[in-house]
């Protein structure tokens, strides 16, 4: 088991490097002179005239004339040591700003994740057990409908209903303890359709297997069959999907945090895009991808601990 985990960690590390490289390349393709951007953000105002000498100075300062690969290499070396560059806009180290925002995104994301899980997994199990029944049809219909709602629009509708018309909840910021409710609900709704569907189809498939008939022939009661034999076989699919959904939550957080002015990584990324703060963009993208990679790593480890075929890889005979 340990060997498996270690192999996965090494693989994840390389993926992270590749992701940061890809991100760096993509960002470097931005039109417009980076030196000019830095100048206008950091040193002078947007309306001031740009002198060539200043551009030169900035270029040298930030090493912008060397080939892309070397620039990336410099970033990578720095990044591995903890220096992710300095934000053009805020003039503080990138990592410190990111670190201060992570807890907010984590908090919101985890609440939404667990809430969605608690709602949709039991629904999916029940729907599978009573396939083609009323509950099954209704829940499928409802979840497909929920899955068709744009999350940013849902956020606005929730604001209209709960903040403007009913005046129950605050809209933005983190002032009161109630602030997490609307953004949490918005993120949660995004997760429910897929979670429900995967649970339902996985459970249906498992219940049709021969070993469930064997379990029944032993004299186990239906609850025993489900808890002892079915759930353990459903778990790998559901957990894998949960990992992928975390990716969606991380992506969705950009929009949700921006609308509700929730000070997390998502909002930080959005702000940095608008202000063309490239070091911050790179830092945010790598951080969010790291979160996703960690989630997939946990998924791999958990499914391997449940399913021996993954970690042992084949028969001994």
């Amino acid at each position, binding site marked *: 088991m340990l060997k498996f985990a270690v192999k996965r960690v090494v693989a994840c590390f390389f*993926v992270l490097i*590749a*992701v940061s490289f*890809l*991100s760096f390349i*993509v*960002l*470097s*393709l*931005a*039109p417009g002179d980076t030196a000019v951007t830095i100048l206008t953000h950091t040193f002078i105002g947007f309306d001031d005239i740009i002198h060539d000498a200043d551009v030169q100075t900035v270029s040298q300062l930030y090493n912008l004339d060397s080939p892309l690969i070397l620039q990336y290499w410099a970033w990578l070396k720095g990044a591995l040591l903890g220096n992710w560059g300095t934000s053009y806009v805020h003039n503080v180290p990138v990592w410190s700003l990111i670190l201060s925002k992570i807890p907010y995104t984590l908090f919101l994301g985890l609440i939404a994740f667990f809430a969605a899980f608690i709602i949709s997994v039991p629904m999916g199990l029940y729907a599978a057990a009573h396939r083609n029944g009323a509950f099954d049809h209704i829940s499928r219909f409802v979840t*497909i*409908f929920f*899955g*068709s*709602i*744009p*999350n*940013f*629009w849902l956020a*606005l*509708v929730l*604001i*209209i209903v709960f903040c*403007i018309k009913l005046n129950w909840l605050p809209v933005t910021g983190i002032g009161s303890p109630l602030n997490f409710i609307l953004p949490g609900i918005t993120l949660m709704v995004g997760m429910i359709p*897929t979670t429900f*569907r*995967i649970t339902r*189809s*996985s459970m249906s*498939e498992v219940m049709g297997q021969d070993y469930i008939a064997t379990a029944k022939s032993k004299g186990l009661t239906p609850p025993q069959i489900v808890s002892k034999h079915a759930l353990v076989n459903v778990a790998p*699919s559901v957990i*894998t*999907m949960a990992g*992928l959904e975390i*990716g*969606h939550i*991380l*992506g*969705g957080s*950009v*929009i949700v945090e*921006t609308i509700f002015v929730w000070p997390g990584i998502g909002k930080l*990324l*959005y702000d940095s*895009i*608008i202000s*063309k703060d490239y070091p911050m*963009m790179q830092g945010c*993208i790598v951080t*969010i*991808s790291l979160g*996703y*990679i960690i989630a*997939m790593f946990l998924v791999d480890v958990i499914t391997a601990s449940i399913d021996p075929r993954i970690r042992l890889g084949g028969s001994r005979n």
Partner: protein
Amino acid sequence: MTVGPSLCTHDPNAVKYSEKCISPCAEYPFGTDFSGRCVLCRVIYGAHISIGVALVVVVVGAFIGVTVGIVAGYAGGAVDSILMRLVEIMLSFPGTIFALAVLGTLGNGTINQIIALTVVRWAHYARLARGETLTVMNSDYIQAAQAIGNSRLRIIVSYIFPNIIGQIIVIATLSIGPVILAGAALSYLGLGAQIPSPEWGLMINGGKEYIRQAPWITLAPGMAAVLTVFAFNLLGEGIGDMIDPRLKEKAEAD
């Protein structure tokens, strides 16, 4: 698509400040927005854009993805490894983030939006196509085809492709809905279509400031998006149920 324009009696881009923010009524079933434009007409024209963009993204993305997937699956070895590593890396980016990165650098506009969404999507199809190709490759009739002496291209075109096309169609149909939503999200953030395009995400963004006095500006395009995506999702589910109920599990895993 052809029905739309005939329902519109107003020019979706005509600005008439004298008629701004009128509540829904007989003449303007969805009211007017802050520039006096008919919201219903803009929603209908927005449908063209949103659905059009989604179709282009799905078709182009599927084309690229399937090609890569079949090549990787058929060639095997080093080619397969390299291509699949690339696919894995692409999939390690949460989709929205990568689209944002691409748009952050390319700049705004509908064309760039299409590029960003396609770049994010193709990897899903590639992974599926490769998996299916491998399954087909393992079946006996492929070995028989090779034994007869078919050229590689022929095998791909005549044997592999027809067997995986069904699944690809289901997955592609199921992804139209999510792509419409992703496109609207990017426009909402101001990174896709630009003013004065009647793209839904953009309209919702525009209506944000008028939530209190004219909520219909935000509500109408949103409802349209929900219903359109809902329709496509149902269509995808229906096709999926017809072809093979097990496919959807794979689709959802993406």
